[in-house]
């Protein structure tokens, strides 16, 4: 992948994270947005876990957070003298960790969704 594309996605993921985090925080903690204490009750958690738009939003959130975080980490690492000449290896390792974490997040989100009767 060209660096420019990686960085563009990094910036877009950052902007996306900002919006999704705002939505997430306002939903869970701001009463005026329909959240508040009730939002943390198990029934409310389950309702969200079974709502298709919420599941999709959380998976996008997960992907954006992982991409943003791990691409940033990869850029930090390849500037260190020890990894400077090992760009491909660092990119590969960091990508694998990111993908594994995404699959894990995908599994837990979908498991809850499917077990709860969502579909």
């Amino acid at each position, binding site marked *: 992948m*060209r*660096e*420019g*594309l*990686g*960085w*563009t996605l990094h*910036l877009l993921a950052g902007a996306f994270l900002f919006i999704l985090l705002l939505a997430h925080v306002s939903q869970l903690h701001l009463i005026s947005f329909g959240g508040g204490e009730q939002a943390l009750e198990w029934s409310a958690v389950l309702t969200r876990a079974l709502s298709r738009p919420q599941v999709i939003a959380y998976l996008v959130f997960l992907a954006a957070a992982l991409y943003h975080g791990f691409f940033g980490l990869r*850029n930090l690492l*390849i*500037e260190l*003298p020890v990894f*400077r*000449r090992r*760009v491909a290896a660092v990119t590969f390792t960091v990508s694998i960790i990111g993908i594994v974490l995404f699959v894990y997040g995908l599994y837990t989100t979908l498991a809850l969704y499917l077990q709860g009767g969502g579909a």
Partner: protein
Amino acid sequence: MSARKKDPNTYIFKVFRYQPGKDEKPRFQTYEVPLLHPGMTVLEGLIYIKENLDPTLAVRYSCRMAVCGSCALYVNGKGILACHTALREFPSGKLTVEPMPNYPVVKDLMTRMDEFFDHHRQVKPYLLRPQDRAEIENPTREFLQLPEQLEEFLQFSYCIKCGLCVSACPTVATDPDFLGPQALMTVARYNRDSRDGGTVYRLKVVDAPHGLWNCHFAGACTEVCPKGVDPALAIQYTKRESVLHALHLNKLPRFRKKLAPVAPPPKPNRRPGIPPAPERTVPEAPAS
């Protein structure tokens, strides 16, 4: 050394001395240099030392008029062109003269510039027009460019390749593989030139690890440049170009680059009313 030189017409030069392979470690040597005329420069001071006090001192220079970029060095921790900096600029009268950081030292104040020019060459610092190869290889006429198109890159063409920006760059200090501000600035110099059609070729070189995106926008390059070039701005321009290419937005009419056309063949009477050239007054040299 006293806090202030005693004689206002004498300058104290504390000069970095080191010859790798011969000296164990660098040292500083102190010389007293008289002010020979009010506008005397740091370079003239160093030449005075070389000619009168210590011929073993190594210092590089050529044009002595801020054009060739050979005499870049550091005085009191600041990057300067020695030929373009007057001794009067140092009212304390004390100068600590060092070679540019971020470069290997050849001897004393002379640094090795191979890598700097290698990075410069990598970004293809010349007009590329793959669509007009014949004209580029055997030029017949000029490319037409408007003054406002020239403005787009003019300041970047003032670069004299002194290397000071690279010496000041904190990213080069930590990542020697980084292309550096001068090479990256040169990309904008040519990509923004309406006569050039080589944007994709240069982006291929710089849109890579240790390239464009390793610039953290410290701005030290712009701060130190003795010619008023703004490499930090140039790099931002190229980052924008890279994003446009990554998203294929460069094909939109708003961002598409229009190549300057080749000038039409001159008409015999392009500007009527111009009198014919006068007869030669000097005989033509005989063909050898």
